[in-house]
């Protein structure tokens, strides 16, 4: 769980998934709102046009019927004013008292032009000259309302016109300001709605996918752990019947099969070991019994060498089976906390007399405890193999340096000698079984065994020849959990 907190949310898969999902969702809803907006705008236009056409007909009718006398202007003006109060899309704010008597909020005008283009009658805001010239300048198709830009007004007017029999024309104009305001309000609401939908969608997708992916992460954490420790544990499963639950089940099924084949391998090697060790035990015991009965001499020499051969055979058997198991990544470890520094000091102490006797100079360079988690028995045998190897192959008067260093989360063990180095021909396949140098007297399992133990501990091993001559083996083993290791190291000091 702590890894989630350490990892920024921006880099998580949940973040990416929700980002893309939200983008798609936002684009989709945007299209829907755009279409809605278009539909509403068209409808408003249609209603305005219908009103204009209807009212202008009525006005034209009134203008036609009303006798052209002193009362004409008043009658037609009143009718036009009445019509103006029924303007569609009017906003409540327009119903203020000062606008009630005249044309509301300068949004409607009525204009009658004479046959000669003169202004015959004007009902509307202001003088009407500028409106008249703008209207007359534009060519209005009969019976089709048209947009006309009037000087002094920011919004265009929608104007419908009808000819009257006396040659004059009646124009009715409606400012588009109110429609635009309605549309603007609508768009603002649409936008706010869209924004909250998108944010809500993002939050839902992010939280859901993070929850699902956290299950995936738990599975992968468990799987990693299983790879490094025992095969007995399983990844966590959920009772939901989704893909992730299936993944967990599939992984567990795979682990079952791996565990069963591992178990089979162990059974085979165990029974092989058992079948070979029982007769070896009997032979060794009998040889030992007969040895105690004989006096020193030729016969006892033969028995002694037979016992020694038998012990070598046993060791070879053990190592072969270990290497075989390790190459199948099936070496069984009993893990404890081990101080490599202490282990190496004890080992150097053990081997130092033999080395000195052969004229070899051995030195250990180490700066205090380095804790790792590992199998003490296997690590002892591994180091013994390394030292045996040096002891057998180094010509006298050579020197040997063992260096132990701490790397980040790892311990590095370097074994460097000033001998003839590895046989270049076998260097690439040095850690394989049965690989021996030309002059080697071993059974060719030593380095394979070392490699096996290192691999079983999750480490790496490399062998090379130094430029100035001499062999160099570098082993890197993962260190113990840092926090735990530090307290242990502190306790050791």
């Amino acid at each position, binding site marked *: 769980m702590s890894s989630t907190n350490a990892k920024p949310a921006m880099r998580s898969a949940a973040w990416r998934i929700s980002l893309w999902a939200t983008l798609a969702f936002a684009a989709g809803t945007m299209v829907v709102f755009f279409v809605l907006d278009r539909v509403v705008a068209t409808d408003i236009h249609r209603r305005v046009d219908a009103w204009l056409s209807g009212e202008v007909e009525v006005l034209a009718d009134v203008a036609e019927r009303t006798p052209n006398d002193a009362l004409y202007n008043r009658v037609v003006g009143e009718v036009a004013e009445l019509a103006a109060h029924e303007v569609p899309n009017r906003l409540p704010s327009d119903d203020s008292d000062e606008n009630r008597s005249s044309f509301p909020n300068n949004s409607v005008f009525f204009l009658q032009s004479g046959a000669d283009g003169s202004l015959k009658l004007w009902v509307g805001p202001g003088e009407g000259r500028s409106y008249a010239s703008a209207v007359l300048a534009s060519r209005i198709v009969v019976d089709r309302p048209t947009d006309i830009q009037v000087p002094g007004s920011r919004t265009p007017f929608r104007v419908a016109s009808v000819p009257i029999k006396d040659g004059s024309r009646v124009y009715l104009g409606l400012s588009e300001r109110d429609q635009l305001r309605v549309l603007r309000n609508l768009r603002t609401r649409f936008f706010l709605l869209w924004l909250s939908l998108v944010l809500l969608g993002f939050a839902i997708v992010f939280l859901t996918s993070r929850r699902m992916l956290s299950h995936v992460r738990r599975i992968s954490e468990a799987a990693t752990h299983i790879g490094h420790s025992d095969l007995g544990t399983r990844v966590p499963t959920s009772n939901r019947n989704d893909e992730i639950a299936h993944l967990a089940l599939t992984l567990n099924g795979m682990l079952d099969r791996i565990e069963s084949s591992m178990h089979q391998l162990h059974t085979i*090697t*165990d029974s092989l*070991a*058992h079948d070979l*060790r*029982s*007769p*070896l*035990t*009997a*032979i*060794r*015991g*009998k*040889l*030992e*019994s007969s*040895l*105690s009965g004989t006096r020193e001499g030729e016969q*006892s*020499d033969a*028995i*002694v*060498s037979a*016992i*020694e051969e*038998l*012990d*070598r055979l*046993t*060791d070879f058997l*053990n190592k072969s*089976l*270990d290497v075989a198991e390790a190459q199948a990544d099936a070496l*069984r470890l*009993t893990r404890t906390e081990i101080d490599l520094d202490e282990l190496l000091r*004890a*080992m150097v*102490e*053990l*081997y130092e*007399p*033999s080395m000195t*006797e052969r004229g070899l100079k051995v030195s250990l360079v180490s700066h205090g405890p380095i804790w790792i988690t590992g199998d003490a*028995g296997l690590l*002892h*045998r591994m180091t*013994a*193999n390394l*030292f*045996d190897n040096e*002891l*057998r192959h180094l010509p006298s008067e050579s020197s040997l340096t063992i260096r132990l260093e701490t790397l980040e989360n790892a311990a590095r063990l370097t074994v460097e000698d000033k001998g003839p180095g590895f046989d270049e021909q076998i260097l690439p396949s040095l850690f394989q079984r049965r690989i021996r140098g030309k002059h080697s007297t*071993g059974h060719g399992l*030593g380095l394979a065994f070392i490699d096996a133990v290192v691999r079983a501990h999750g480490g790496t091993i490399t062998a090379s020849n130094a430029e100035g001559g001499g062999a160099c083996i570098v082993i890197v083993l993962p260190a113990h959990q840092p926090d735990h290791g530090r307290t242990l190291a502190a306790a050791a000091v």
Partner: protein
Amino acid sequence: MRILLVEDEHEIQSFLKQALTEAGYQVCLAPDGKSAEGLAVTHSYDILIVDLGLPDQDGISLILRLRQMGVVAPVLILSARRSVDDRVRGLEQGGDDYLTKPFALAELLARLRNLLKRNAPAATEATRLRVMDLELDLLRREASRSGHRLQLTPQEFVLLEYLCRNAGRVVTRSMILEKVWGMRIQPDTNVVDVHIYRLRGKVDGQGQQPLIRTLRGVGYVINER
């Protein structure tokens, strides 16, 4: 001292019985778990040697059952398996011991002695060890021969102490490695021999009567000749 030997392999049975009898133990044989249960209930034994691979049941189950039946004698487990079972480790912590096959007789005898000693009432720990004219002061970690102080390294002292504690008894190389260096390893080279050789140079030097003897094919023994 009565031993119950639970082992199904006839060949191993016979040589073990012979060797144990020669070492002064009274040996009872049980070829399988069932007969072992019967014998353990009706007779009293000082120690049990149990092979893990019995024909009728698992050796560990047998030991656990015997413990339930009230058998308290320590158990030496013989195992031909490769890895040491966790359950064996559990028993080891409970005061029992294990030995992997094949083994040296000397080691088997040494482990039996250890198990019996563990069960015996604790004798007051000696602070001095004596083998003829060789004397070890265990508190001051000093050794002297015929009154002359020996210049030993701490490790050499531990080695000599181990030999002297087992004076007159054979110790094998792997026993030395386990008890003195704390490692269960089998070196391909003669590392232990060189240590003994050095120690011998200091203990048996200057024309004195040799104390540390090599038994070829078996191990070492320190005793008076």
